């Protein structure tokens, strides 16, 4: 399956969904005016990936900032990943945040409460 790679901009994160190299990562900021247009292709890609996923998938979120509209779309992505998990696939999420950034840590904890799949919080300095 083809990778989906979107370079970061001032208002959208870098997206790497690359089964060939087994890298799945969202990083940077997310505050697009139109979240549906930006995240639509990501959700579609994940639907297609669920047809024949890798034997193990680790999805990393390494975001420094996202607005409330993006927070809803991140939840939509996590719910989609939860579906793969429910189907029996080996899939997990890593939520990376800067140690000092208590709000980003809290956001990770809230997502961990909202979705029922392995979601690990990892801090960095």
């Amino acid at each position, binding site marked *: 399956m083809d990778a989906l790679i979107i370079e970061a901009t001032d208002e959208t994160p870098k997206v790497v969904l690359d089964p060939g190299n087994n890298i799945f990562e969202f990083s940077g900021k997310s505050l697009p005016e139109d979240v*549906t247009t930006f995240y639509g292709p990501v959700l579609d890609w994940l639907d297609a990936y669920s047809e024949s996923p890798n034997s193990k998938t680790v999805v990393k979120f390494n975001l420094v*900032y996202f607005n*409330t*509209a993006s927070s809803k779309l991140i939840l939509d992505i996590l719910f989609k990943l939860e579906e793969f998990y429910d189907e029996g696939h080996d899939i997990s999420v890593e939520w990376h945040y800067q140690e000092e950034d208590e709000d980003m840590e809290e956001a990770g904890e809230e997502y961990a409460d909202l979705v029922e799949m392995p979601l690990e919080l990892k801090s960095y300095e």
Partner: protein
Amino acid sequence: MKENSFANSEFMDFVYSVHENMVKNDIMLIYEGEVNQDITKTFTTLTQKNLEESEANLPIKKRVYHVMVECLQNIGKHSDNAESGLPEIPGTGIFMVSKSTEGYYVITGNPVANSRIDEIAEMIETVNKMDKDEIKAYYKKKILESRISEKGGAGLGFIDIVKKTGNKIDFHFQKINDIASFFVMKTYIN
């Protein structure tokens, strides 16, 4: 000619008084006009740079940035025309960031149709009444129920501002005419 030069000197005085007042009140940024995504990006980038040089800790800096984005996107998406009361896209309004000894204020003002006042006031009053745990629970409930609107919002802005800052939102509606009022909201981040 004389009138002109008088008007000119009055204007120069006005510029000086704006400058003086901004310095006196520690206003970092003030803007009146159209708020679109480019304006949002420009101001948030500028403020981010100013904040990086300040001594505030990381969560405060990020909260100021966060509140700014939510407030600017609110004006851009929800400001109504003062004469017609109809939605203006992109919206216009006033936007201010100021510094106090302990923290930062983000202040916005924009016209809204009088018919929307009750709904906006209720949304803010609901979250203003909640304590930390209540607001966390409410946020989780609302993010699950939320659908992205035609305007691209998730309806979580006020909740998130109160949740992140831990402070109540001050707000006021100043009647413009029978159709619209000027909605002012002030958030404190410390």
